């Protein structure tokens, strides 16, 4: 047992907080991430992580909770993108780029102020790459409440969101308000970015948002299956990341552990690469079937 769990892992308070915060952030990111990938809004998600950087670094300057900074900026950014035109496919990249550029400029200023003020020399590392072992346990109720609300919103708009992701025309013809659905989704995206920024840092939160979702979409045979699988992948990667980071304190003589976020991102990357193996095999079988004159659209492995 000690070969896997170094002494004190199960009794450590910071580890408990990290496991809870990490799991909650991973769950929300996975659910929102699946829709972000399906809707083709991965870039918008990434842009919001940079916007969250502005909020996080601004929070350090002001001396307030980084969670408030991450969430506030991401929600403001989501609203701005929606206002500029993220609902229209052609306007999406433009709106995202405009907001991204402005936010990054502000983040550069705040990070400069953070690092030049004596009390917050570690701010850059914490904001960009996370410091989950230093998150206060008092944050847990807020994070849990935000997660519940976000998942509730996604569940509430599930069907209109799904149809509008495939065809805006089809959804509009059914009387679905693309504006309302799109705005609610962007707000959910902003909250998930804010939460994962606390866990693994604003820059790396894209990995938690997109990675498990992209891998699950490759592997699952239904969208609901993809949602469940993305949650499992996200939580497993996060918990293993916490474990490896904790254990890494004992790997080197200097008693200095490695960052949690690096492990989490590496594990997600490995999961994504591994998810490509069945896809390659399926494509090989399909091209083989086509070569033998087999019918299209009769993929046996897709059958439930």
């Amino acid at each position, binding site marked *: 047992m000690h070969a896997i769990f170094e002494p004190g892992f199960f009794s450590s308070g910071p580890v408990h907080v990290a496991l809870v915060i990490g799991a909650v952030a991973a769950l929300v990111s996975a659910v929102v991430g699946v829709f972000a990938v399906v809707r083709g809004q991965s870039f918008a998600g990434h842009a919001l992580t940079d916007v969250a950087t502005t909020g996080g670094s601004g929070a350090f300057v002001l001396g307030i909770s980084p969670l408030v900074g991450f969430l506030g900026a991401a929600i403001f950014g989501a609203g701005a993108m929606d206002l500029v035109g993220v609902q229209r496919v052609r306007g999406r990249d433009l709106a995202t780029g405009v907001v991204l550029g402005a936010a990054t400029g502000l983040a550069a200023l705040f990070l400069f102020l953070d690092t030049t003020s004596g009390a917050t020399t570690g701010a850059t590392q914490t904001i960009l790459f996370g410091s989950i072992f230093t998150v206060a346990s008092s944050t847990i109720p807020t994070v849990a409440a935000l997660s519940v609300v976000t998942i509730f919103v996604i569940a509430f708009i599930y069907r209109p969101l799904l*149809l509008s992701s495939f*065809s805006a025309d*089809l959804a*509009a013809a059914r009387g679905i308000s693309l504006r309302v659905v799109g705005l609610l989704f962007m707000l959910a995206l902003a909250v998930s970015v804010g939460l994962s920024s606390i866990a693994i840092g604003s820059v790396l939160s894209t990995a938690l948002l997109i990675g498990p979702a992209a891998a699950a*979409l490759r592997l699952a045979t239904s*969208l609901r299956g993809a949602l469940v699988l993305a949650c499992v992948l996200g939580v497993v990667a996060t918990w293993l990341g916490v474990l490896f980071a904790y254990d890494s304190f004992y790997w080197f003589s200097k008693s200095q552990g490695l960052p949690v976020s690096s492990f989490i991102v590496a594990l997600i990357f490995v999961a994504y690469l591994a998810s490509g193996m069945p896809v390659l095999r399926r494509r090989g079988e399909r091209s083989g079937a086509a070569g033998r004159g087999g019918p299209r659209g009769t993929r046996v492995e897709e059958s439930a």
Partner: protein
Amino acid sequence: MSTPVLEVDGVSVSFAARKILDDVSFSVNRGEFTGLIGSNGVGKTTLLRAILGLQRLDDGEIRVNGAPQSQRSGSLGYVPQKVILDPDVPMRVRDFVALGLDAQRYGFSRRTKQQHALVEDLLNDVDAAHFADNRVGSLSGGEQQRVLIAHALISQPSLLLLDEPLANLDPKSVQEVVALLHHVVVEHHVAVLLSAHEMNALLPVMDRIVYLTNGRAASGPTDEVIRSDVLSALYGQHVDVLKLHGRVLVVAEPGQDNKDIPEHSTLTVT
């Protein structure tokens, strides 16, 4: 006589200074197959969007089952021109069809056994049951059209609108989709309004035609509209209508500007 399913009455639509639809009027009855024929850019999609209530009218009125736009929910099925169906997204055929039942519904509800049975029946009806568990994006163009038609039909509309469903299909798939739509009209007694830039594939099943060009429309039974005098008046130039081996060719005289004559219907005689 019963109320037509669709009444388009003096509809005009403009984009900026360009008039797309100019006083267009026609009606569609229940159980009728109507072709909306015209070359690319003449306003077919604009007209369908206007019927759906997605396009503001400059003038005129559109009624579905006698009701104005605000009261027509649920009576229209729609197959749009473009639907992004990514093969990497695990959206199964049966799930996509079922989404047609309640996609507009917010909140939490489980589908009933009757609704699941309805999905199965419709999948069988459009001959999609054998690939019901496949990803929609992995299907061929013809198979995807069958799935989109099932998605539109499952809410049991009285009018089915299809925007260029035959575009980019191979001839065999075109025949299959047209036969399926004819089956839908006969068996489900649904009115079909299908836009296309080529009418010949539809001739065996088309009860009526709405021929659109220069923003104006001629409509009625196919034989009464596809005539030289009617189409010449519509084009504002003389055109001949040739019928050869069950196909129709709309022919402009050499040297005439014939850019608005639908593709594949044009034959320049020398």
